[in-house]
């Protein structure tokens, strides 16, 4: 057997680390989707009427839409009636202390490497944990409240801060935006909400941890971040799911609103179950993420490390409305085995002197397909807009694919738009060189891949960067022989 083949075979042998399930008693909706289900979800959450109406409007609009066909991915038709749209771990509502949380849940957190008890005392990260459809725990709430920062589950925000939710919900991603965002608007069950008041520099990382646990369940969470004038926040999200043979749908929406002089850093490490090595199972990750730099001099920076999911379809975007506002997108997307990714960004320049920067690093291995799709749009009144895009692809083996679909629309002559793209392969020569220096092949792959992705990884907060590096190495472990 040729070495390349051997390499590829070993590459595919790696098992997903978070594939376990825990038997948590769940409170679920009946399978399928109709107006009653939408009402059921809304009722479960004790939602006000305006929100139920909003959901129903979204649902009715969704019925008129068709699933998008343009992404460079293939999958069997999804039967939206075969999905459970609401599943909640049964537990006491709003636990007062950790003692009141189901021990099985605590066990889940420990397995995920999130020790809530430790979290409370030691680390500088406030965590909101969402399992299936509901938020089950949020740490550091009180500390943050002293600064006027609101960080809570979406459901809580609806009840406690309706004026904020009402004002910003759907303001960046309208309920009619696209098939999956509209579906989410109808059936979203929980998620995280954060509000950073004027002039406050959020002293710790805010983070949401998403976990799909129940079978046949879709996860539809919503995240809404509102960052007021001159405020700053760094937000992290992580996700895992059990290994199941059937595909699971995850259609989330993230909205970010940045006022004048505000700055938001949004980092994702996405590690949903990717399916097994034969391409059975895995999460369909169809996500709409968008931020608006509404005020002058504001900045939104997206960083994503995408290693999981059978299919990833997401384009974290920035609407640069305020003058001098800045949008950034840093991405590492890894696909292995039969994974498919169609991911990138949209940078919409509206304000004057707006700047955007796109750094996308794709890594394809196994029989996977990895596409970058990005739009840079300079509107007519966006004087002196600048964009720099760099799209690199790294191929491992000869059975995978890397694709780049850049779209550039320039309507103002003063714009400067640059696009660079490269494609390279991890060479046997590089691996042999490392081996000869005493570096095992697995370490060599990790070294080479991390070197390749360095520009993106360095954007992540420290603890996360270390995690992400390990995750990259794990995803590609056994990839090369």
């Amino acid at each position, binding site marked *: 057997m040729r070495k390349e083949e051997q390499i590829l075979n070993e590459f595919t042998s790696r098992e997903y680390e978070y594939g376990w399930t825990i038997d948590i008693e769940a409170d679920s909706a009946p399978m399928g989707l109709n107006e009653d289900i939408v009402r059921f979800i809304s009722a479960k959450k004790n939602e006000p009427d305006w929100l139920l109406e909003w959901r129903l409007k979204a649902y009715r609009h969704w019925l008129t839409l068709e699933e998008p066909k343009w992404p460079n991915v293939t999958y069997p038709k999804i039967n939206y009636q075969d999905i459970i749209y609401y599943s909640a771990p049964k537990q006491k509502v709003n636990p007062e202390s950790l003692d009141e949380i189901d021990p099985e849940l605590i066990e889940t957190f420990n397995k995920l490497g999130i020790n809530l008890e430790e979290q409370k005392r030691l680390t500088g990260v406030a965590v909101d944990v969402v399992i299936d459809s509901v938020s089950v725990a949020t740490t550091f709430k009180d500390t943050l409240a002293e600064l006027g920062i609101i960080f809570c589950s979406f459901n809580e925000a609806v009840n406690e801060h309706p004026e904020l939710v009402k004002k910003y919900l759907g303001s960046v991603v309208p309920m009619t935006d696209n098939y999956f965002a509209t579906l989410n608007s109808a059936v979203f069950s929980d998620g995280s909400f954060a509000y950073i008041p004027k002039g406050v520099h959020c002293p710790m990382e805010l983070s949401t941890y998403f976990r799909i646990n129940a079978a046949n369940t879709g996860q539809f969470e919503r995240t809404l971040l509102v960052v007021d004038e001159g405020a700053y926040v760094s937000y992290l999200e992580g996700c895992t799911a059990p290994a199941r043979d059937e595909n699971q749908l995850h259609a989330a929406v993230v909205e970010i609103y940045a006022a004048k002089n505000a700055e938001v850093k949004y980092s994702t490490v996405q590690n949903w179950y990717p399916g097994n090595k034969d391409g059975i199972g895995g999460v369909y990750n169809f996500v709409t993420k968008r931020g608006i730099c509404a005020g002058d001099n504001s900045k939104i920076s997206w960083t994503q490390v995408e290693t999981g999911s059978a299919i990833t379809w997401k384009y974290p975007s920035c609407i640069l409305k305020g003058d001098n506002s800045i949008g950034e997108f840093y991405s590492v997307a890894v696909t292995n085995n039969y994974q498919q990714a169609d991911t990138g960004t949209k940078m919409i320049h509206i304000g004057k002197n707006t700047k955007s920067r796109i750094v996308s690093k794709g890594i394809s291995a196994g029989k996977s397909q990895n596409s970058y799709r990005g739009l840079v749009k300079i509107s007519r009144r966006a004087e002196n807009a600048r964009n720099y895009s760099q799209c690199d692809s790294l191929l491992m083996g000869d059975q995978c694919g890397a694709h780049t679909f850049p779209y550039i629309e320039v309507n103002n002559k003063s714009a400067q738009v640059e696009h660079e793209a490269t494609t390279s392969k991890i060479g046997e020569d590089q691996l042999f060189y490392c081996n000869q*220096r005493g570096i095992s092949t697995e370490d060599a792959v990790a070294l080479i891949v991390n070197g390749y992705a360095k520009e993106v990884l360095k954007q992540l907060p420290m603890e996360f960067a270390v995690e992400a590096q390990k995750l990259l190495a794990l995803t590609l472990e056994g990839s090369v022989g």
Partner: protein
Amino acid sequence: MLKIKNLRASIGDKEILTGINLDVNAGEVHAIMGPNGSGKSTLASVLAGREEYKVTSGSITFLGDDLLDLSPEERAWKGLFLAFQYPVEIPGVSTTNFLKTAVNNVREHRGLEKLDAVSFLRLMREQMKLMEIDQSLVNRSLNEGFSGGEKKRNEIFQMALLDPKLAILDETDSGLDIDALKIVANGVNHLKSSDNAIIIVTHYQRLLEYIVPDFVHVLYNGQIVKSGTKELAFELEEKGYEWIREEVAGISI
């Protein structure tokens, strides 16, 4: 230290080494010379364990072990080092990071403690002086955009850090100007000891003016056809490889 017996090796269907015999002991410097295509680089690659080359018969013992049973990295851990003729580039991986990974991997397998960042940098700085390596070079991605001379110096620099028992220098002199050649030779001479051995694979005698070999072997058509001392290298320089060809032809007739 190294014992090669009747080694035959091929790439694809083509046999390149047709029966090599060579003994190398600790403290010795051996030069392997020969015209293009005689199998010099193949021998170096087979010793380091490059997979494209298939050993069809013969044996190699290295420090008591069957070398052919070991993977390339196991050979490195045991103390075999190859200075590449064409060092590869690894974008985004700083030379320092690469070297630290290599040194600690090797140390771990030699039963030594891993070096922390401070101790490693100290060790690296010492060796940088020796090889006249500039700080800016080790901050750059490994070999990326290095000049030919910088790449070759970087190879010997790595040799210094990894402290091998047997170093094989594959055409290290090619593409070097005289100043770089001297730096490389000084480095190698400094690393030479009674505990280690060096095999210099070269087409020209030039490097051997600075690193004096104890033995010179002439490789021709995949075999060592002549062995001698450093005088043999001078003779080759003077007469070229033609007379070897004639001599070999004479023997075979």
